[in-house]
C-alpha cells in the first residue's frame, strides 16, 4: 500500500520529458513505476538510494536507446497510471530543467542568506582591497563568526532540503551526462589536483578548507540554480558544498551528490 509518492521527471536527448513515479510501500520500501520501451514496469526498491540508482539507469537508458519517436512519449502518459495512494500527505519532487517549487524555495533561502550576510557585513569592518593580508583575514574571520552567531543551529539540509537534494542530484547527473562526462571524471580531476577528499573536514558552519577545492565543471554550474555573489558551489569528493566565499564558511552540505555514489 503506497502512502506517499514522488514524481521524478527527466529529459532525454531529444528534449522530451519523462515521468516516473515512486511510491512508498510497507515496510519502508519504494516501488518505482513507469513505462520502459512502451512496456509498463514496476521495480521494488528497498531504499530511496535504490530509487535514485534506478532513475540513474532509466535516464541513461533513455539517452542510449534513441528509441523510435513516440515510444518514450508513452512514458508520460503511461505513468499517469493511477497509483494506489494512501491518505498520507503527498511529497512531490521537482522537474529538472523546470522551475520546481523546491528550486524556488532554495533560491529564496539563498537570497535571504545573502541579505543576512550583507546586513552583518555592514556592522563589521569592510573587506576592502588592502595591502595588509592580516586585515583581509581578520575581516573574513569576523564575518564568518557573525554568520555563525546569527545561524547557530545551522545544519545540513537547511538549504539543500530533501526535495532540493533530489533535484540537485538529478541536475548534476544530467548535466554531466549530457556533455559526455560522468561522476568518475569529476573524481579523476580531483585526484589529479592531489586532493584526498576523504580527509576534507566538512561541517556546516565550519571554515571551508580551500585546500580541498577543485574547479567546478562549467556544465554542472550551468545546470545548478544561480546563487548570489556571496555563495558558490563546490564538489568535494561526493559532497556538494554551499560556501559563503566572502566568509570562507560552509553554509550547507549535500552528501552523495553524485548519482553513482553508493550510500
Amino acid at each position, binding site marked *: 500500500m503506497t502512502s506517499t509518492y514522488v514524481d521524478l521527471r527527466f529529459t532525454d536527448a531529444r528534449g522530451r520529458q519523462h515521468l516516473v513515479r515512486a511510491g512508498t510501500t510497507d515496510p519502508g520500501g519504494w516501488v518505482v513505476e513507469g513505462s520502459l520501451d512502451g512496456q509498463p514496469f514496476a521495480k521494488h526498491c528497498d531504499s530511496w538510494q535504490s530509487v535514485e540508482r534506478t532513475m540513474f539507469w532509466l535516464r541513461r537508458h533513455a539517452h542510449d536507446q534513441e528509441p523510435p519517436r513516440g515510444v518514450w512519449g508513452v512514458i508520460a502518459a503511461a505513468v499517469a497510471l493511477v497509483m494506489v495512494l494512501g491518505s498520507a500527505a503527498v511529497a512531490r519532487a521537482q522537474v529538472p530543467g523546470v522551475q520546481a517549487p523546491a528550486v524556488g524555495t532554495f533560491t529564496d533561502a539563498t537570497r535571504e542568506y545573502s541579505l543576512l550576510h550583507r546586513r552583518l557585513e555592514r556592522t563589521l569592518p569592510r573587506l*576592502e*582591497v*588592502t595591502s595588509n*593580508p592580516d586585515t*583581509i583575514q581578520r575581516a573574513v574571520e569576523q564575518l564568518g563568526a557573525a554568520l555563525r552567531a546569527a545561524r547557530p543551529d545551522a545544519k545540513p539540509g537547511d538549504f539543500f532540503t530533501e526535495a532540493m537534494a533530489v533535484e540537485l542530484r538529478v541536475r548534476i547527473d544530467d548535466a554531466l551526462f549530457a556533455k559526455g562526462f560522468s561522476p568518475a571524471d569529476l573524481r579523476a580531476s580531483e585526484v589529479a*589536483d592531489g586532493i584526498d577528499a576523504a580527509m576534507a573536514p566538512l561541517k556546516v558552519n565550519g571554515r571551508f578548507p580551500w585546500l580541498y577545492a577543485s*574547479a567546478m*565543471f*562549467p556544465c554542472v*554550474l550551468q545546470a545548478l540554480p544561480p546563487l548570489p555573489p556571496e555563495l558558490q558551489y563546490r564538489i568535494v569528493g561526493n559532497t556538494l558544498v554551499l560556501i559563503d566565499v566572502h566568509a570562507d564558511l560552509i553554509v550547507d552540505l549535500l552528501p552523495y551528490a553524485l548519482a553513482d555514489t553508493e550510500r
Partner: protein
Amino acid sequence: MLTLLRVLGVAAAAAAAAVWPAANQPAGVAGRAFVFPQSLTFAVIGDNGTGKAPQYDVARQMLKSHADRPFELVVMVGDNLYGSQQPRDFVDKFEIPYGPLLRMGIPFYATLGNHDEPDNRNYPKFNMNGQRYYSFARGPVRFFVFDTNFMDPEQVKWIDAALDSAREEWKIAVFHHPIYSDGDRHGPNVALRVVLEPMLVSHDVDVVFAGHEHIYERIREQKGIPHFIVGSSGQLRKGGVTPSSDTAASFADDNAFLIATIDRGNLTFQAISRTGAVVDSGVIRNRHMTEN
C-alpha cells in the same frame, strides 16, 4: 631624420593614447581601432607560489631578464600561493621573491588558481581590485582574466560581453586551467573548453595563457589560437609532458617563465628556464590585424 621619426612616433603614441584611454574602452565602435603604435613587454608566471627555492630562483632570473628586456607587468596564471595562505605566506611566497620587481613598481596581475583562496582577490598587489574575473588594458593589449574555478553563467555572460566590446589590437585571455594540454597530470580541461573556446574564437582572441600543469608548453594554434601553459614558475613536474602533434614546444626539465613583447602585429616570446636558458622562442603574428 631618425630623430624626427622618433618624435613623430611619440606624438602619434600620445595622440592614440588620448583617443583610446587604456582602460574603459568605449563600446559600440565597429572593428578594432588599430591606431596604437605602442609596444608592450610583459612576463608570465604560473603555479609559482610555493615559497621554495625554485620559485626564488625563477624570480631572480626574472630580475636578470628584466635588465636585458625590461617588462612592464607580470601576469600570474594562478596558484599564486600554495598551502597555507596566512598573512606571512603573502610575504614568503610573493613579496620576498618578487620584492625587487615590486619595488621597481612592476605590477603583478593575478588569476585565481585552484589553490588560491578567493579572498586573495582583495590583496592589492595582485591587482584584482576585489574581482575574481576582470580585464585590463595596457597599450595595444587587453588582458582578460577569468576565474576557471567557478565558471558560472554570470561569468560566461561577462566574458562574452567583455571580449565583444574590446577594441584593442591584441586580446589575450588568461586563466588557470588549460583547455589544451599535453601535460601528464591533468591534460586538457575539456569541460571548460566547450564553454570557453567558442567565445575565444568568435571574439578573435589572439593568445591564451594558462597554467595548472606544472610544465611549460606551447600548443599549436587551435582554431586559430595559440595556447601557452606556463605552470612551472615555482612548481615543477619534471618530465611531466608527453608531446603530441599539437605540441609546438615543451619544457619540463626545469622551472620556467615567459617574456613576451607585443609590437604592432607581432608577439615575440621567449620562455626562460630557472638557469636562464632560452627554452623556447618565436613570433606570433596577429592574424586579426590588417595593415594600416
